[in-house]
């Protein structure tokens, strides 16, 4: 059974002067039990709104939310088997740490003794013993974060919702908490629904990621699927770094296609999908999947270009290489040997080798005006 299921959920806000604003549009998601599921997308894409509809703070304008198979439309937040860790933590300032954590259990009218043991256990789990009697404002950001976590976990919910819980922490603490959250999720076996705009965070923590843009789900998949086989340019661009080469299909057979980039550069790619000849497509090439060689190093046909930029980044070096007057490609090379750190200089001719099966073809794209212009001029000749 799915822990949480959204069926065709949309949310329309009525703004000032009664203008409608569609924050979430026709979102359908199945989130299996025990999974670490991330909602990833840029600011304003509707992540928080989706989370709030699951928690019950907003009602979907259309569509339904199911938790453990039960429809949630008529259930107020305090009757839903989910708990939320808020972005700003939302700790009660007039209560101590222990009282904050105990609050949810008091609402269940549990016996006092049981509350005390469970609060102790939860605080131990987030390693906050000894701070029971402090007020939230006497804690550091990281400690507040842990209290918020303990306060939600102590309720032993089926599903925990997180709204950018690490957003306010510094980078190092953030990395630590990422690992800790992931461990905790595996240990407790609770379903985590995790909102973030940080693609790296989503990649490292999640079992599955849903990528959102302007209220719509673009792609749902494991981190590997999302990174290796992005299904559209937005996803490829938002997650990791990508090169995009736009071109026309000029040949197509059962084994693959040949794409002519900028009317001058043919690239042949094996693929199982069929693209009609003449269709404009986009090639997605990850910078680390291309290797750079001196000119004439390889005698097989491959891409050739001129180095226009070299940036040393420590673990690797980033080269920008001009392939055609219109297009460049970014290649990253790991700095394995000290001896050949600066073997490619700006202005140098180089060859680029790619495993052709690591190129992703997207059936979308637009030729730049200059490209169409060159194309038509050629035809005139």
């Amino acid at each position: 059974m799915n822990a949480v299921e959204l069926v065709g959920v949309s949310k329309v806000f009525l703004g000032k002067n009664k203008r409608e604003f569609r924050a979430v549009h026709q979102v359908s998601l199945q989130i299996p039990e025990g999974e670490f599921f991330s909602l990833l997308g840029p600011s304003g894409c509707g992540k928080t709104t989706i989370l709030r509809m699951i928690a019950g703070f907003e009602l979907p304008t259309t569509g339904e939310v199911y938790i453990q198979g039960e429809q949630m439309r008529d259930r107020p937040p305090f009757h839903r088997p989910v708990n939320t860790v808020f972005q700003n933590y939302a700790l009660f300032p007039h209560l101590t740490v222990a009282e904050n954590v105990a609050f949810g259990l008091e609402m269940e009218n549990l016996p006092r003794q049981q509350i005390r043991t469970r609060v102790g256990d939860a605080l131990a789990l987030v390693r906050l013993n000894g701070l029971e009697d402090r007020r939230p404002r006497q804690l550091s950001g990281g400690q507040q974060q842990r209290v918020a976590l303990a306060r939600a976990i102590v309720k032993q919910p089926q599903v925990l919702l997180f709204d950018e819980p690490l957003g306010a922490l510094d980078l190092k603490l953030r990395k630590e908490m990422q690992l800790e959250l992931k461990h905790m999720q595996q240990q407790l076996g609770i379903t985590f629904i995790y909102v973030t705009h940080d693609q790296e965070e989503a990649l490292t923590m999640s079992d599955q990621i849903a990528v959102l843009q302007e209220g719509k789900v673009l792609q749902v998949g494991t981190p590997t699927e999302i990174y290796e086989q992005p299904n559209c340019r937005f996803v490829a661009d938002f997650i990791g770094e990508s090169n995009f080469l736009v071109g026309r299909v000029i040949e197509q057979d059962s084994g693959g296609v040949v794409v002519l980039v900028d009317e001058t550069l043919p690239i042949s790619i094996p693929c199982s999908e069929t693209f009609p000849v003449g269709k404009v497509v986009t090639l997605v090439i990850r910078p680390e999947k291309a290797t750079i060689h001196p000119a004439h190093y390889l005698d097989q046909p491959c891409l050739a270009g001129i180095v226009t930029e070299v940036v040393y980044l420590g673990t690797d070096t980033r080269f920008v290489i001009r392939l055609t007057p219109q297009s460049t490609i970014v290649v990253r090379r790991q700095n394995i040997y000290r001896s050949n750190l600066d073997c490619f200089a700006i202005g140098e001719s180089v060859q680029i080798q790619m495993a052709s099966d690591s190129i992703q073809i997207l059936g979308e794209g637009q030729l730049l005006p200059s490209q169409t212009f060159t194309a038509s001029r050629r035809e005139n000749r």
Partner: protein
Amino acid sequence: MITSSLEKNQKLDRWTRIIGQRLLELTAILSIIFLYLPIIILVIYSFNESRLNAVWRGFTLKWYQSLFEGVAGQADIATQQIWNALFNSLWVGGISTLAATVMGTLIGLAMERFRFQGKSALEALLFLPIIIPDITMGISLLIFFSLLFQLIQTLTGVRLVLGLPTVIIGHIAFNISYVAVIVRTRIAELDPTLEEAALDLGANEWRTFYRITLPLIVPGIISGALLAFTLSLDDFVITFFTAGVGATTLPVFIYGMIKLSVTPAINAISTLMLVASLVILVSSLALQRQKT
């Protein structure tokens, strides 16, 4: 050429700045003197030996003493009346504050938390008692009460007259606004996710209010109540119109005394009221400033 004129400009700027600053300081000091000099004089004369206010005859505490003899029942009739009036003032202040605080808090909550029809109209109406002149409010209350009493008399034959209850109603009427405005500011500063967090943790709306919202806005409520109490103690105009015979509060009584003869006991009691008002007002401000 250019640099020298620039330097000149800078010098001029500096001088205008300094002069402007001094002028501002002077104005501030003068206004403070203007505001507080009469009060300071009042306080000083409450320690004056002379029966006449105009001349200083030396320091004494006898006017304060005479006030407190009133408690022991040995005072003259005038002091006895002062105590009666003070008691009336406290009674009116207490009851009207209590009622206005409860109602004002509820209105403040409703205004900040709910959307309803006619909200903006209510908002404007709520500010009205704060801005309309006391005299207008006093007269309108007087007319209202006399019409109401006439109606009651024709319907039931019972004859009602103005008195402390009408004063209390009048005070509630203007105090509600102040309390509502202060409570509302406090609620507006309250982070709404705190209430959501409580709902999320399984508290229904009532328990959320009782355990989270109320404790967090209590400083606002108390400060609204303190302000209401001071306003009620100090009010003259509205009380004057709604009091009728025998329902004399301290300000009304003092006003009446001035017309007959001014005993320095009035200075003493005014000073005491001033101190009490100050204490209440300062605590009210301190509570408003207190961060959640």
